């Protein structure tokens, strides 16, 4: 086994680097050292779990824009949160302490597992790892959603993850805006509060708004690890991007009757999943899809006298996803 690497093909200066440089030399706003920017990012991950807030935000991906309402309150040291999907099929996600529930008036089930919620909630426990692969710098002050914020550029140290731009509320430390850039600096996804109110979160804000709803318990998801028929010791990734570590999964296979396996890895900000399944397909064409910052690729490989489909999905550049898929190995 050996690590695979991608040589940099282009020496062109990335637009977001120029943006950062320009902002650093021209902005009249107070200059923040990188360390202060890091502290603000870390504060942001804590604030998302500890602050009471409510408001409306939009999420843009390509030409698509959707809107949401969120209310978050800490009661008895437990997080309570409600997210309302304002567009498309009615859906609400309720977090009550440690469990999630998806509420639907009917239709397709959305399932999830127990976990904790909060903007970048996972960041704080892996911040040392994070700063090994990203650097942070401030781009100045900006008013967003009626609030004074500090704009921070989070730059990756390699080509295996995307840059982020955050607007952090100067008072609460909450993230008010986040933009995921591609490797050329062009926006791919934008999360943007249009209204954010601190405190004043009522029980009504947290109560389900869907009448006659059906609850889908998140723990009901099939854990692929438990159901997998493939011996986990036989499958390895010969290479994965630095800083990504395996996390828990509760992902359903496409066809549970066939051998299958799933992994998820995260660097604290981005995540990717690897799905392995036995295939009986005769047409073994590789396919790929890009949806905002999420890349999905599939290809086939032979192992142990069988054909397997390897699928990698994640918020990583498509070239990295391909590289990961190519690094899947089977050891008899």
């Amino acid at each position, binding site marked *: 086994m050996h690590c695979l690497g991608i040589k940099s093909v282009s020496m062109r200066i990335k637009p977001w680097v120029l943006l950062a440089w320009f902002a650093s030399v021209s902005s009249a706003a107070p200059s923040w050292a990188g360390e202060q920017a890091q502290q603000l990012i870390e504060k942001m991950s804590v604030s998302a779990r500890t602050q009471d807030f409510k408001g409306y935000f939009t999420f843009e991906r390509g030409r698509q824009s959707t809107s949401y309402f969120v209310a978050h309150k800490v009661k008895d040291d437990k997080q309570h949160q409600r997210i309302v999907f304002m567009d498309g099929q009615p859906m609400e996600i309720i977090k009550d302490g440690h469990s999630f529930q998806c509420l639907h008036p009917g239709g397709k089930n959305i399932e999830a597992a127990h976990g904790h919620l909060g903007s970048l909630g996972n960041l704080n426990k892996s911040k040392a790892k994070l700063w090994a692969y990203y650097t942070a710098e401030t781009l100045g002050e900006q008013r967003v959603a009626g609030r004074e914020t500090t704009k921070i550029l989070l730059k990756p140290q390699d080509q295996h993850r995307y840059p982020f731009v955050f607007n952090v509320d100067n008072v609460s430390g909450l993230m008010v805006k986040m933009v995921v850039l591609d490797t050329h600096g062009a926006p791919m996804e934008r999360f943007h509060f249009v209204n954010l109110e601190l405190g004043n979160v009522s029980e009504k804000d947290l109560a389900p708004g869907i009448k006659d709803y059906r609850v889908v318990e998140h723990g009901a998801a099939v854990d692929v690890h438990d159901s997998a028929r493939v011996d986990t010791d036989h499958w390895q990734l010969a290479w994965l991007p630095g800083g990504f570590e395996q996390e828990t999964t509760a992902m359903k296979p496409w066809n549970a009757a066939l051998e299958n396996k799933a992994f998820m890895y995260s660097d604290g900000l981005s995540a990717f999943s690897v799905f392995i399944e036995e295939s009986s397909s005769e047409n073994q064409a590789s396919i790929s899809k890009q949806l905002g910052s*999420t890349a999905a690729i599939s290809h086939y490989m032979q192992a142990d006298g069988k054909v397997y489909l390897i699928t990698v999905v994640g918020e990583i550049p498509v070239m990295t996803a391909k590289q990961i898929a190519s*690094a899947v190995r089977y050891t008899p």
Partner: protein
Amino acid sequence: MNEQQQETLSALFDGETSEFETRRLLDELSDDDLERWHQYQVISDASQNKLENTTFNFSVVDAVAAAIADEATPVADNASTAPVKQSWFKPLVGFAAAASVAFVAVLGIQDSQMVNPGFVADGNVSVSQLPINGDLGLSTVSGTTAVISLDGDIRAIDAQKAQDAKRLEHYLQQHTQNAAFNNGRGLMPMARMNTGE
């Protein structure tokens, strides 16, 4: 390949040729001509940092797909026309193979650091049949893309493509949900759950 043919071929890849010009060119050029031209074009584009544009040149696929669709119907309706099929079929298959070579050749250069490249870096399904764990050398690709030659195969590939696309969407959904609920990355993964469709 003479100069006029090169100009016509260039126009074809830009989607600027008429149906008559396309058919005449396909009759005149050999598979080797098409492959060689693509290699030159890819190398030229690579040297000018234009690979991305070359990769996403859908007009080639459109031209091939349109040509197949135009010609396949009468053959499917009447099996006795098989001898007629031979007159257009060979260059068409050759062009289909060459078109796939064009795409894969681009990827071959872009992915030159990868052990097993074999993906089309766009949002669509590739028509090329890539060998399992295979090398994406031009000769290999030319051989494997010949599977496009039969109408039945085309329909089978279409059905498989649809199935593959559904499966990929399933995995996208599973990844998004797991990222949203299990690992605490906040509101952004939750927002990704809503496709708005």
